[in-house]
C-alpha cells in the first residue's frame, strides 16, 4: 500500500489492445483528491476505453491502476465501486422500467454481503439520502416516475445521482453533457461545482464539449490515437499547437 501518494487515482503506463488494434498505449494519468480533471480527444482517440480501464470495466493488458493507494488492476468492477469510485456511461444506463427512486435505491451504499443483511429492506438512511440527492439534482418531483419516461437530460442527472448514492470520493463522468439542453448543462455544471466545493469530491470528466471542460477543469489530459498528447491547465491546452492540429488537422 502506497500511503505516501498524494493522488486519489493513478494510472501507470496503461495499455489496452483489441486484437491487433492498440486503443490505449502507455498512458499515465493521476487525479488528486478534490480535483476536477478533464479528458478530451478527437473521436476514436481512446477516451472511453481509458475510462473503462480505470473503472475496471475492461481488463488492461499492461500497466496498473492505483486507487486510494491500493492496486486495483485485478479487482472486479463491483469491488472498485465499493471502494469509492463511481461512474456514468456514454450511453445512459438507468433502469428504464423502474421508478426514479428505485433507480437511486439500487445504487445504494453497501452494508454487507450476508444473505440476511441483503434480505433487509432499504435502510431509512439510504432512502433519506436518495430523497436528498433527488432534490439536490432537481429531480425530487419525478421520484415516482418511471426512469424511461424522463427526458435525456433528466436521465443524465439521474445517472449522476445514482453514481452519487454510494457517496464516492471520485466520479468518472462520461460525456455528461451529451444530448443535454443548455439549461440543463448549466444545472449539471452547478451541481458538479457544488459537490466539489462542499463535499470535496474529485471528478474525471470525459467530454467533447470543450467549453464545458475549459469552464470546469483544473487540469486536462488530451488523448490522440490512444496516446497521451498533452497535459496541463485548460488555457495552455487550448493554445497547444499539437492539440489544435489533432482536433482541426491544421
Amino acid at each position, binding site marked *: 500500500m502506497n500511503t505516501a501518494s498524494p493522488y486519489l487515482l493513478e494510472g501507470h503506463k496503461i495499455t489496452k489492445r483489441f486484437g491487433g488494434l492498440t486503443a490505449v498505449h502507455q498512458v499515465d494519468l493521476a487525479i488528486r483528491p478534490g480535483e476536477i480533471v478533464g479528458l478530451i480527444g478527437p473521436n476514436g482517440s481512446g477516451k472511453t476505453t481509458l475510462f473503462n480501464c480505470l*473503472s475496471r*470495466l475492461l481488463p488492461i493488458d499492461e500497466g496498473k491502476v492505483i486507487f486510494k493507494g491500493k492496486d486495483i488492476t485485478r479487482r*472486479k*468492477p*463491483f469491488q472498485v*465501486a*465499493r471502494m469509492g469510485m*463511481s*461512474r456514468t*456511461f456514454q450511453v445512459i*444506463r438507468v*433502469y*428504464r*422500467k*423502474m*421508478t426514479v427512486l*428505485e433507480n437511486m*435505491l*439500487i*445504487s*445504494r451504499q*453497501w*452494508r454487507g*454481503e450476508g*444473505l440476511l*443483511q*441483503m*434480505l*433487509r*429492506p*432499504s435502510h431509512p438512511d439510504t432512502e433519506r439520502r436518495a430523497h436528498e440527492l433527488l432534490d439536490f439534482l432537481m429531480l425530487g418531483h419525478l421520484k415516482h416516475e418511471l426512469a424511461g419516461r424522463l427526458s435525456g437530460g433528466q436521465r443524465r442527472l439521474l445517472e449522476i445521482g*445514482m*453514481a452519487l*448514492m*454510494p457517496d464516492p470520493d471520485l466520479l468518472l463522468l462520461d460525456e455528461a453533457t451529451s444530448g443535454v439542453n443548455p439549461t440543463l448543462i448549466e444545472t449539471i455544471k452547478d451541481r458538479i461545482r457544488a459537490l466539489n466545493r462542499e463535499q470535496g469530491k474529485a471528478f474525471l470528466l470525459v467530454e467533447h464539449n470543450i467549453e464545458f471542460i475549459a469552464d470546469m477543469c483544473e487540469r486536462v489530459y488530451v488523448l490522440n490515437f490512444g496516446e497521451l498528447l498533452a497535459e496541463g491547465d485548460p488555457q495552455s491546452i487550448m493554445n497547444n499547437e499539437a492539440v489544435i492540429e489533432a482536433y482541426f488537422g491544421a
Partner: protein
Amino acid sequence: MGFLRRVWRLISANGGIYSWLTLIAILALYPLLTPSGAALLTATQLFMLITVSSNWNLIGGMTGYVDFGHAVFFGIGAYLMGILVTVVPDYILFSPQLGFWQALPLAGLGAMVFALLIGVPTLRLKGPYFSIAMLGTFVAMREIIRLLKPFTGGGEGLDLPPVLNRTRDYYFMLIFMGVVVALMWWIRRSEFGHSLLAIREDEVGAEMRGIDTTRHKIIAFMIAAFFTGVAGAFWAFQNTYIDPDVVFIEQRTVEMVMSSMLGGLGTVWGPPLGAFILYMLQDLVWANFYNLHLFILGVLLIFIVLFVPEGIIGTLGDRSSTSLGRLLSRGFNRGERTMEERA
C-alpha cells in the same frame, strides 16, 4: 364487471387485512367444507403450481435469466425423496429408508447444491445461451437418472410408501405455498430483490454500481432450486411412484414459464395469479377438448407473448408494487377512468 367492481370496493373499504384474513380462513377451512378427495387434490396441485412458478419467477422474472430447464430441480427433489424413503427392491443398492419429514429438507438441499454446481458455469451465459444450457441440463439429467439404475430404478422407476392423506397434503402445500409467496414478497422489497431487478435490467450497470452480480444470481438460483426441490420431493411422496418419464417432463417448466408470463414476469403476485388462471384453463380445456388441449395451450402462450407481454399485473397496474390490493384497485380504477374518458 360492474358487480365485481362493487364487490372489490366493498372489500377495499373494509381494509386489505380483512380480505386476507377471509381468504386465509376459507383456505384453512376448505378441507372441512368439502369431503371430496379429488377437490383437495386439485387444490393441492394448484398450490404446487403457484409455488414452483413463484420460484421460477425469482430467477426467470426478477433476475432475467429465463430458465428452460428449471424442472430439473423438481426432478432432483423427487428422486432424492424417492431414494431416501423408498421400499428397497432387489435392484436398488442404496436407500436409508428415512421418513418423509427427514427426507424433505434433504431433497431441497440436494437440489440447492446441484443449483450451485450447475449455476457457477451456466449463469455466466447470457440470454438464450443460458436458457439452452439449462434445457440441456434438464434433458441430460433425465438420461443420467435412467442410467443410474442401482440408485434410481432406471426406467422401471421407484415405488414410494403408499401413504394416502389428502387433507394432510392439502395443508402441507397450502402452508408451503404461503411461505414461498411470502418469501418472494419479502425478497422483492429487500435490497437483494432490488439488486436482482438491477441485474435483469442491466447487468453491466449493476456490476459497476457495486453489485456482486455473480453472487446474487447464484443465491437466487439456489433459493429457487431449494423450494422447487422440496416441491418435487413432496410431489413424489404424494404420487407414490416415480420414473424419469413422469418426473422429467418439459411441460412442467412450460407451465412455470406460462404462469409467470401470464400473471406478470418479475412481479410478486403475477405467478400466483397466472398459475390460478392457467390451472383453471387447463382443466377446462382438458375436459372439453382433450385431443387439442396442448395445441390450445400453445396458442395461449403465443397470445400472451404477443399481446400481454407484461402479464396481467403489468397491464393492470404497477409492476413494482408488492401490494395485491393496491394493484387490483388500481386496475379497476384504470378501467373506470377509461370509461369516463370514453363518455
